[in-house]
């Protein structure tokens, strides 16, 4: 009855306070890039001879490609509304398989790479099927899976580090360079372009977006929600395995524990990336910028002589700040409605 009368069409937000809002949202898109530039400028000013060198820049861009690919894998399920806490476990297992099968048993490196990728698919399938068949929260399933995989790595490696990985792999990861930057960096860039293409230019990307932001709407619009979530989790497994292969190729060896430390940086970068380029959404370009922003900060602080504690403090702090920022942005958008 009268509730149909009380509601009047609302004026367009843009016509009333258009310019200010538009300028602010433009600033929000690029703010992370600006912050990155500021961080580079500060460290360059403080340590011009060690930080601001071609060699150091190439190191940052190259060595953090592993984190770029891992985080790009992570944002696939995040975009579809699911957490994946097993990615670091998958990365470690994949790196260890390369170390054992190639470094120890000298199996052809490219066969080993294929095997590692296949393991990524299997992990993703397990995660997805457990989530879908038993209706368990993916947070719990992947938390268990990550720990399970870390244990498997300790078992198969007997808690040892394996070196002697084929130079064939090491060369195409860090040995060879293009424009002075290790090839690794370009793999991250290609992965970023592929994820951007998937998210923004395919129908599947649109469906993922609906599954992640409004699952009931997706279901009632005829989208196969379960299949979409499964594909996203398998994608995360594959990209995490790829990151593990690069991880092994970067150092030419595989150790059983250091890979698991990549989980938190990946989450920090994913959430920070969701505040940039397309604010409010997990997106590919925001992710790559966030990884390099964080890596630059850690690298600079290390050059200033701060101890290894700074990495944890920096990444952990960044995760909380990033989530708080996106929460603030959401609240502000809600205020604009009224």
């Amino acid at each position, binding site marked *: *009855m*009268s*509730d*149909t*009368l*009380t*509601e*009047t*069409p*609302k004026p*367009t*937000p*843009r*016509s009333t306070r258009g310019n200010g809002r538009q300028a602010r949202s433009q600033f929000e898109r690029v703010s992370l890039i600006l912050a990155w530039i500021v961080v580079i400028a500060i460290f360059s000013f403080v340590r011009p001879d060690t930080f601001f060198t071609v060699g150091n820049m190439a190191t940052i861009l190259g060595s953090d490609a592993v984190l770029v690919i891992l985080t790009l894998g992570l944002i696939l399920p995040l975009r579809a509304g699911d957490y994946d806490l097993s990615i670091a476990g998958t990365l470690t297992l994949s790196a260890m398989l390369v170390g054992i099968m190639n470094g120890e048993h000298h199996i052809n490196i490219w066969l080993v790479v294929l095997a590692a990728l296949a393991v990524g698919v299997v992990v993703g399938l397990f995660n997805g099927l457990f989530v879908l068949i038993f209706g368990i929260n993916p947070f719990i399933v992947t938390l268990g899976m990550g720990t399970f995989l870390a244990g498997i790595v300790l078992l198969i490696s007997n808690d040892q580090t394996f070196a002697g990985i084929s130079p064939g792999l090491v060369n195409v990861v860090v040995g060879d360079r293009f424009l002075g930057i290790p090839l690794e960096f370009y793999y991250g860039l290609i992965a970023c372009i592929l994820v951007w293409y998937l998210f*923004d*230019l*395919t*129908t599947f990307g*649109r*469906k993922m*977006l*609906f599954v992640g*932001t*409004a699952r*009931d*709407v*997706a*279901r*009632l*619009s*005829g*989208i*196969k929600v379960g299949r979409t979530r499964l594909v996203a989790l398998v994608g995360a497994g594959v990209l995490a395995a790829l990151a593990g292969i690069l991880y092994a190729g970067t150092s030419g060896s595989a150790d059983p524990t250091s890979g698991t430390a990549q989980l938190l940086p990946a989450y920090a970068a994913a959430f920070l990336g969701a505040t940039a380029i397309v604010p*409010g959404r997990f997106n590919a370009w925001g992710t790559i910028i966030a990884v390099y922003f964080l890596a630059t900060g850690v690298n600079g602080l290390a050059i200033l002589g701060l101890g290894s504690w700074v990495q944890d403090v920096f990444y952990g702090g960044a995760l909380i700040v990033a989530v708080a920022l996106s929460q603030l942005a959401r609240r502000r*958008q809600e205020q*604009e*409605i009224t």
Partner: protein
Amino acid sequence: MMSAASAEALGQEPVLSVRNVSKEFGATRALDGVSFDLAAGEVHGLVGENGSGKSTLIKTLSGLHLPEPGSVIEVAGEQVPLPISAASLQRLGLRFVHQDLMLAPTLTVAENLFVNELSTEPSWLLRDSQLRRRAEAMLAPYGRELDPAAKVGTLAAADQAHLAIVRAVSGLRRHHALARAAPGVLVLDEVTAFLPSAGRAQLFELIHEIAAQGDSVVFVSHYLDEVLEITSRITVLRDGKLVSTVDTADVAGDDLVEMIIGRRIGTDLTDTHTDDVDGRPPVVTVSDLSGPVVRGLGFSIREGEVLGVAGLIGSGFEEIPALLFGAQQATTGRLQLGEQEFEMTSMTPSAATGRGIAFVPEDRAGAGAAGALTVEENLSLQVISRYQRRGLLHRSRLHHDAAALLDDYDIRPRDPGTKMANLSGGNQQKVIMAKWLATNPSLLLLHEPTHGVDVGSREQILLRIRKAAHDGMAVLCASSDTEQLSELCDRVLVLARGRVVAELPGHSLTKEAIAGAGYLTTPIKQMTEGS
């Protein structure tokens, strides 16, 4: 009008006295100066249409709403501070069985039974075995077998209702054991909807017993035959106002319906009118459709026909669109759509959309459109594959077509990049209509298509639906807005207790006829075929 019976005639001081209670929600006056008395030992009916203020009154009595200043509630002559606190409800002996029962589905029967005591009598050593024995003892006198260790969520709806009633009644008895035998009040809000007829008889016996002990019962129900059977007085609300309080012995069913809807329903329910769609072939045939409430429903929709389904809340009409779409699982049923036939038990939304069925759900924000995404993304979702060319989405064409739809449907603002949540309800609903009509479905399912929509958008949406039907689409519209149904539909099925009780064709479609038919409990079905 009937003469209002005074409380004094029935006894001494009223147990519960409601004086001039009002409640506003924004500009809406849900309750407007309502007063009534509850005498000791009486069963008092409370009736009215959906939106008449019954629920608001019950929620005010149970302390969920704070009424406007000037409202007074007295219990045994003592004025109660408002909003009524949970503690004073306990002290005064007011017990409620709410429409949604307020049970914790993941906890056991025993835990649910003792939730009040657990909150008021802390114990440092709870023993399951003891809890279980006490629960068995408490349940025993009420006939129905219930396992105290069973999780409430796994019980049938009738058992859940039974449990909630037992909990309230034993709470009332406990009150007697503690307090100075002051009479208590049991409020039953639409509890019979899920009870089978045996359970209903049992409940009525229990109600008589409670009243015989001097406690009072407030009985809220849409089913007037029940109200006439069990109550001694009836209070009728309409549009938030008190119509009257009458002695049950003095009223007939027809009078009560007239008081509830404000007009006498015509006796022309049998008037069949031949409309221009009558001759057309049926494109949709539903047979033996059953769900949580509806039982063995069968009907057909002709090409270009708008079929309405209506009834009181809980009658089952509201689940029909979701069942047909597979959004809610049907227990039996078949759907014939053109040449295709579907088993309804295995229907899913993705199968339905694939076969040309569209569904506009009632819950616009939660199920109709993604508020966090843009208007363009929401508009294009159903037809997104049309925009894929050589593996790439044609984004400029998407944008262009979305902008054209905004013009066509008069959706404001005219910016496809606006977030869906920033649109008004009417504009959101127009986006959802446009999104589905773009697929050119052969069956359009609507649930409350103009809820919370401004007047202008409402007209535009109804016109769109008529136009879609005119172009040959079969439309099914489930709505509690009887005025809208009378404007929109070619034919309306009215449900009660999960079954069709009336079929109103063509010109007998008036707001009053649809509302009145909802109070029927025995089917008087007219056939409109073969004229």
